[in-house]
């Protein structure tokens, strides 16, 4: 039979996490014998729309994409539906009234990640003997979906907790450099008052760790650090005792995606939501887990 052709529109290559995500999808496609048409959108929604239109014009068998943002997909997904091409979402949902416009969503839940980070911190606070813990937050890029959701989930989890006080929040744009820069400023403004750092991704946390060390403090002890993603660098930091916990957000959804694609094309039923298995890795398990990390 002719090999199945999948058109995949990736957000971009903005982070290590994303590169791992891309690699996973490409490898899985090769293993499953699926011809992958890969299009990089360079972080722009309009490029994703263009790519999807072009996939439709090329009559691929199935379209998959990681939406840059939730809104704005109605029109182009209708076109896909009219062309009878099934659509699979990865990573996050889209905001469409007509749920039949896509078959399934594979991926993580950013709000849930934020909640997990918040819950871990709440547990920690309960054990801590300090009366109040001052938290500073390094947000992702302003307006970006993971930043908004991870913030919302975290706030939900710590809301009303009298021991946790949000001191400062500022964007570190998901990068090490900005994470470090902002943390430096926080340290100068508040110094030892800061007890906890919550970073929306590991990269910012790694940058902030450097700032904390350069300020003569001990990351992971003087300042508790909570972050999200679970990339290799974070595990190394945890092993070194500089990071306290990283909430996993797995980019390795290639195999699940390919499986779902084959099922959809074969006409088998597919659940509307496929959740990737994700865990919370506190520093205690890091050393054991590190050799297993693929990215």
């Amino acid at each position, binding site marked *: 039979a002719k090999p199945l052709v999948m058109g995949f529109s990736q957000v*971009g*290559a*903005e*982070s*290590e996490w994303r*590169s791992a995500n*891309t*690699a996973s999808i490409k490898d899985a496609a090769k293993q499953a014998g699926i011809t992958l048409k890969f299009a990089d959108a360079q972080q722009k929604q309009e490029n994703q729309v263009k790519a999807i239109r072009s996939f439709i014009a090329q009559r691929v068998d199935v379209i998959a994409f990681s939406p840059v943002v939730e809104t704005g997909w109605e029109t182009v997904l209708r076109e896909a539906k009219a062309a009878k091409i099934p659509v699979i979402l990865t990573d996050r949902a889209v905001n469409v009234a007509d749920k039949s416009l896509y078959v399934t969503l594979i991926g993580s839940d950013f709000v849930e990640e934020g909640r997990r980070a918040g819950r871990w911190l709440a547990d920690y606070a309960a054990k801590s003997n300090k009366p109040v813990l001052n938290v500073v937050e390094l*947000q992702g890029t*302003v*307006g970006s979906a993971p930043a908004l959701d991870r913030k919302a989930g975290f706030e939900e989890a710590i809301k009303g907790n009298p021991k946790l006080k949000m001191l*400062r*929040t*500022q*964007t570190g*744009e*998901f*990068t*090490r*450099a900005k994470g*470090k*820069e*902002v943390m*430096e*400023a*926080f340290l*100068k*403004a508040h*110094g030892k008052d800061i007890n906890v750092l919550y970073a929306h991704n590991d*990269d910012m946390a*790694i*940058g902030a760790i*450097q700032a904390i060390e*350069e*300020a*003569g403090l001990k990351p992971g002890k003087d300042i508790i650090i909570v972050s999200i993603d679970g990339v290799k*660098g974070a595990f190394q930091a945890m092993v070194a005792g500089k990071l306290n916990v990283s909430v996993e957000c797995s980019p390795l959804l290639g195999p699940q995606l390919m499986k779902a694609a084959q099922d959809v094309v074969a006409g088998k039923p597919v659940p509307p939501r496929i959740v990737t298995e994700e865990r919370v890795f506190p520093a205690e398990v890091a050393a054991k887990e590190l050799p297993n990390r693929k990215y």
Partner: protein
Amino acid sequence: MTHSTTSAAPAAIAAAPTAAAPRLGARLAAHPLARPLGALIVLLLINLFAVPGFFHLEVKGGHLYGAMVDILNRAAPLMLAATGMTVVIAMRGIDISVGAVVALAAAVACTMAAADQPLWFAFAAALGAALLCGVWNGLLVASLGLQPIVATLVLMVAGRGLAQLVTDGQIITVYRDDFFVLGSGYLLGLPVALYVALAVVATVAVAMRKTALGLFTQAVGINPVAARLAGIRAGALVFASYAFCAVCAGLAGLIISSNIKSADANNAGLLLELDAILAVTLGGTSLAGGKFNLAGSVIGALIIQTLTYTVYSLGVPPEVNLVVKSLVVFAVCLSQRSKA
């Protein structure tokens, strides 16, 4: 004719004011650096009142520690980029590939350093890569005659791709102590990066003053046709300006990657070109080329960095950052206008 010249001279000086003191004040105010410096001072004053401990300095770990030191350290790469950009702009050009070159240099340096190459070799390779970028830009503009903005757009797009190619899309982390000296080391209590930036600025300033480079640069920027007819190698100078700008960007890339001990091909130096151009204009150099103000560009870089830092320290909500930045840009511009 000769007497008419002499008789014109008193008329010319007739405008001289009377008292000496206001004259000094007026002359200071008319100095090209007065306004950018003024803007910087206003920003610092805001910090003095609004951010407790802003000017606090202490010795920690054998070096000075405090907000001011951070600003200087952070501003170093921007100063470098702005210096290169000043030279390009003075010759009627513009280079929007600076950010991409930063990323490429950082990628090369970190990849080689992580592969346990000697440090000097890693740095030389990175600067070499940057220089190649500059040569490429220079060829497109000076030899092929492409418009600077499109010519450098090519590298702006492709350069980051090359950087990611080098790092294979990963963030390359370096775990060697000698690698960090450039970006986070200190010398006599002050950041090494600051010395590097100031050394480059000083070198350019001296070259501009002590050789005829400054004169030629301005002549080419103001009237390239006349400059060529006067025997200046206009093409070669334009070419060299792009090469120099790229090397500055490469150095900035080394500092940035050394500071965070890693190379992030996708984000290193992102939009640095815009900040560099902003610094140059805030410093009082016209984008139309010609007269330039190197010290102004350095101050411009400091203004931008202080502003960023102020926003962080004041606890401005992140969604307001951009509005604040734009208002400051407008305010500084308007304060400079009466000069015209």
